[in-house]
C-alpha cells in the first residue's frame, strides 16, 4: 500500500482521527527461551514490546503523543529557525522509507498523510481530505469541534479517496 497512514490533529495538538494502512511485513516466527530480553505488555488487544530490543523487534510508543510533539515542531520551530521571512510550518518531511505531508487549515486543523516516497498527488489528496472532513464531520450535527471524529461516512469517504489517490487518479468535481 502506498499510503501508510492519515492523521488529523486539532488546534490544541490532540489527535482526533487516525487511520493506519500499512501491510505488516511477513511476520517472522522466533523462538525465545527463558529469560526473555524483552518486556511484553498487552496493548490494544495485541501483545507489544514495551522495553528492550532484540533482532529488530523494537518497542512502540503511542502515536498520539508523537503527533502532539510534532505539531509543535511543525509550526513554532520550523518558522522560527527559518532563514526566510514568512515561512509556514513544516509541509513535507522526507526519509528514505516514507514521506510525511502536512496541510494546515486556517482554523488550525492539521491533516497529516504518511505515504511512500514515490507516491504523487498527495497535495490534491490533502485538499480532498479537507473537503471530506468539512462535508462529513463538520456538517454532522452530532459532531463537536476539536473532538475525536467518529463519523462513519467520513471513514468511508476517506478510504474511497485513498483508493483513488493510490491509483493516481484525479479527483473530479463530483467525486
Amino acid at each position, binding site marked *: 500500500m502506498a499510503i501508510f497512514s492519515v492523521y488529523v490533529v486539532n488546534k490544541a495538538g490532540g489527535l482526533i482521527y487516525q487511520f493506519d494502512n500499512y501491510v505488516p511485513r511477513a511476520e517472522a516466527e522466533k523462538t525465545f527461551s527463558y529469560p526473555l530480553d524483552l518486556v511484553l505488555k498487552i496493548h490494544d488487544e495485541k501483545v507489544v514490546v514495551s522495553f528492550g530490543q532484540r533482532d529488530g523487534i523494537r518497542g512502540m510508543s503511542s502515536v498520539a503523543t508523537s503527533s502532539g*510533539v510534532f505539531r509543535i515542531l511543525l509550526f513554532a520551530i520550523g518558522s522560527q529557525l527559518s532563514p526566510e521571512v514568512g*515561512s509556514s510550518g513544516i509541509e513535507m518531511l522526507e526519509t528514505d522509507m516514507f514521506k510525511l505531508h502536512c496541510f494546515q487549515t486556517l482554523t488550525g486543523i492539521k491533516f497529516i498523510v504518511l505515504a511512500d516516497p514515490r507516491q504523487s498527488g498527495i497535495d490534491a489528496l490533502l485538499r480532498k481530505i479537507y473537503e471530506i472532513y468539512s462535508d462529513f464531520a463538520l456538517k454532522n450535527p452530532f459532531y463537536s469541534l476539536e473532538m475525536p471524529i467518529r463519523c462513519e461516512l467520513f471513514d468511508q469517504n476517506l478510504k474511497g479517496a485513498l483508493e483513488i489517490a493510490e491509483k493516481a487518479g484525479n479527483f473530479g468535481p463530483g467525486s
Partner: protein
Amino acid sequence: MTVHNLYIFDRNGSCLHYGEWNRKKEAGISKDEEFKLMYGMLFSIRSFCSKMSPLDMKDGFLSFQTSKYKLHYYETPTGIKIIMNTDLGVPNARDILHQIYSTLYVEYIVKNPLCVLGEQLSSDLFSTRLDLYIRALPFFSPRAA
C-alpha cells in the same frame, strides 16, 4: 536558487561550524540558543521519524520543507551532522553534503593535527574552502539584495 546557511554539529550537540550566505531573517535569539534549538529540533525529528516509520529505516530522516525553505540533513556514522538550508528549488542535496563531509571536513579537519575535535572549528582553510565549494554549486546564485 540559493543556499541560505549551513551548520555542522558533532555528536554531543556542539556546533562545530556555521556558515551563512543568503539569510534573510534572523532567528531573534542568540547564536548559541539557535544552535541548541536547531540541534534539539533535529534530534526530536529523528526520533519521531524512527517511531512513525512503517518499515525499518536505513538512512533515516533526509529533509523537510516549508513554504519558503528546505532543510537538508546528512549524518555520518560518527555522529557528525551537516545541515543545509536552501530554497525550494533544490531537489536532493544529500550527495553534496556527503561531498562536503568527505572532501572538506575529513581532509581539512580530521587530518589536521592541530584541530581539536569537539570544539568550534578554527581552521581558516576549511572555512574558505567550504565557502568556495558552496559558491561553486550549480544551484547557488547570489541574489540581488
